């Protein structure tokens, strides 16, 4: 075969042919690899189970203690002592997350956020029980930086060496909550990345749910469109309480916001009660807490739902509650 000047050499022919062929093959290969057969191209979500941080109940020790008449630190110490000591809940090397209510840009005496001295005392007790790390965090309603400072909680927690984590947007992940009402919600992951969780709500008036305490405090793990939860607030609270089962609930009733909740603002709405209730049964604690606002557990729908779901016992008087007075 005579090659004219326009013809290319065999080597050149093979080289260029191979390049073009490789291009076609790789384009098709990438296309087939990327090909999605789904009719719904939405993103898949991380699966999730119920988050259970509860510890085994030892017979003989009380499941709940109510202490009154002292400083927040003394109340915390006495409550944990009545329950058999913090070591019953926190083991050596544990990462413990404290979840106070740091929802509002309000000062401690306005009783819109958990008492900072109480948070500090509980963090200290965790460290004494051998906790490796104590994390204090919440997803605030007002600007978080202001809430964390104004509530005094960030300062108090840092003073005993606890890690204070502001709710940064990147640390939210979508979780399946598997609730009756709530399906998939963004959750602030540092709260769940724990060996033990201690829920530290404050008792406050709340116009829609009537009173906000421990189970309602789990709103503070959510991001996203949580303003829509109000449309069925009781079921939403019960779903969250089903999703997160805390090791312990320490209810702050040192100052109780009796009206204009949940953020208050007027000191005339605040009543000095000087009480702390602690226990492992979140439903019993909330049922007890409701009495501070003159309500019975039966009047609060979310307590009823939680009771019926077996999350706890709303008839706290059936439990061996230990009452302690420091006065």
């Amino acid at each position, binding site marked *: 075969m005579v090659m004219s000047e326009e013809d290319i050499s065999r080597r050149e022919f093979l080289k260029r042919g191979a390049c073009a062929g490789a291009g076609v093959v790789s384009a098709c290969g990438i296309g087939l690899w990327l090909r999605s057969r789904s009719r719904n191209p939405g993103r898949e979500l991380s699966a999730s189970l119920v988050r259970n941080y509860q510890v085994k109940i030892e017979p003989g020790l009380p499941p709940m203690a109510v202490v009154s008449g002292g400083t927040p630190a003394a109340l915390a110490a006495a409550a944990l002592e009545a329950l058999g000591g913090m070591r019953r809940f926190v083991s050596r090397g544990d990462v413990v997350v404290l979840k106070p209510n740091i929802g509002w*840009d309000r*000062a*401690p005496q306005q009783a819109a956020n958990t008492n*900072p001295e109480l948070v500090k005392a509980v963090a200290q007790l965790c460290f004494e029980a051998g906790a490796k790390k104590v994390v204090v965090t919440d997803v605030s*309603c*007002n*600007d*978080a*930086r*202001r809430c*964390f*400072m*104004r*509530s*005094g909680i*960030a*300062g108090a927690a*840092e003073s005993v060496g606890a890690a*204070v984590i*502001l709710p*940064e*947007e*990147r640390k939210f992940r979508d979780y399946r909550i598997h609730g009756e009402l709530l399906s998939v919600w963004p959750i602030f992951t540092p709260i769940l990345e724990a060996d033990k969780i201690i829920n530290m709500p404050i008792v406050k008036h*709340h*116009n*829609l749910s009537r009173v906000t305490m421990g189970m309602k405090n789990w709103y503070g793990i959510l991001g996203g*469109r949580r*303003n*829509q939860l*109000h*449309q*069925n*607030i009781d079921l939403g609270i019960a779903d969250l309480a089903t999703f997160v089962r805390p090791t312990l609930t320490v209810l702050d009733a040192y100052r109780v916001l009796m009206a*204009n909740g*949940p*953020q*208050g*603002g*007027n000191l005339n*709405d605040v009543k000095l009660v000087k009480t702390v209730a602690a226990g492992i049964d979140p439903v019993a604690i909330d049922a007890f807490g409701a009495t501070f606002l003159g309500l019975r557990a039966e009047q609060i729908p979310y307590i009823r739902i939680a009771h019926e779901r077996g999350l706890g016992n709303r008839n706290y008087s059936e439990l061996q509650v230990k009452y302690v007075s420091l006065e």
Partner: protein
Amino acid sequence: MSASNSAPGPRGPEVVKRKPRMWLRRARRISQVAFLGLFFFLLFQTEFRGAFFRGAADAIRLPYPVSIFLEMDPLVAFSTAVSTHALYGNLIWALAIIGLTILIGRFFCGWVCPLGTLHHFFSSYKPESKGNKRIDTNRYKRWMSIKYYLLFGLIAMSLFTSLQTGILDPIPFLVRSLSVSIIPAVNFGLRGALDFFYATNVPALQWAADSGYYLFGSNLLSFKPQYYHWAALVGVIFIFIAVLNRAITRFWCRGICPLGALMGILARYSVFGMEKKHSQCDDCNRCLLHCQGACDPQGKVPWRQAECHLCFNCEAACPQDVIRFRFFPETAAVNPTPDLKRRRVLESVAAGLVILPVVRASTGLAKDYNPGVIRPPGSLSETEFLARCIRCGECMKVCPTNAIQPALLESGIEGLWTPILKMRVGYCEYSCVLCSQVCPTGAIWKLTESEKLGKAGGGTPGAKNAGPVKIGTAFYDQGRCLPWTMATPCIVCEEFCPTSPKAIWVRAETVARRDGSTVTVQRPRVDVDRCVGCGICENVCPVQDRPAVYVTNIGETRSRTNQIRLESGSYR
């Protein structure tokens, strides 16, 4: 410094090998870097990042005087003094710059101005034109006098209380462009990269992402991503002006900058300047190669004092001993006045005077005031506000909820980039006064928390026990509200309402559903006497696209006329 070793006399008639004073240029570079660094540091600190070591009772303030660059800007001081007949607060610092400029000339442009330094950098980093072409671009051109006419027009407008200098004044221009557009854009990109690593769930990459947040979390990264109304427009203008440097060195500084123009005029009698020995010049034009101001440092023509940035590149470049900066230079080779035509000066002043009535003849300010122009708390009445606001964007940068946004045309052409609150983006945090603290010109007066909340004299300085500062009033759109129209419980607005007692009050009402059954819901209403217009209700309303509760500016404390009811008017 004035010692002269330039005379060839004692060493003989032959040309002496020259030792140029390189330290002047070096000092200028150090100064530029230091002031640019300080500028960025203060800009990054224009955000409350949470000072947890402080007590719960301490007032929330920024730890640094973040507005000092704006406060020492002579054009801010001069134009607000013209428009308000007073020098507000820390603007007194501008006197230091004004005094030094009168003495030694436009040192600010070459040594201090952060925007000038950025232009300097952009124009000298791998420039497009080199050699003779670059020398030609650095010769003085007639268009460079545009900045003076812009200045005269803007000052003429200020005279009749329409302060527009901030649009072109370099410090407000830079603060605004970076705060509203460039920094948020960098945030967007950086967060995207770091969050990508964080989302991999690979511990090493997550550690890298955490380190990135730790590294940039106290400076470049804001606490939350920030979004601004028409940020792209502000950003495109900034980038366009930055890129222009590639064609013409410091186009902005030479042709546009009204602050440079003001300083050029102030430098008229300066006692420091260039001395040229034309006789020794061999026209190599090396002085022009890196000239910043286009002030004609070359031989045979007088030096233009009003254009020179005192960068000292020419002195460092001169191979002969022609150029020398010194105090009390010989005046023969100096042209001390800007290149101005009297007729043009009169025309620009006339244009400035005419613009105001033309703009104010629009309906906006007088007859059809936009209900969405919700000004930050402590803002003065609209005409006084427009006489002070320099659109620097400090209030937008510092707002913790991102509520304060640059207006486009909401408050008229005159109100371009003035701050307005958009409650779908953020809301006015009840006890926050940071925007009023950073405002350099008093367009938002320096409120304390108790003044804002009405516990010790609200609306007016010095007033005792007045009510809270209102920025607007909330209203319900009952056709969109869940309890009003959908028989569904909600009242998130009531929960978030920060006043005590709450301005939003509810009443339980039994309402019918479509199927005939009934349900009891709490229906919200606004107590106009309690509402401060903070907009948190609008911000949290679950009807996201067009909220069922929204704030308009009626009832705002700053206005005497924009009030609903006689007895509830909060104007004092």
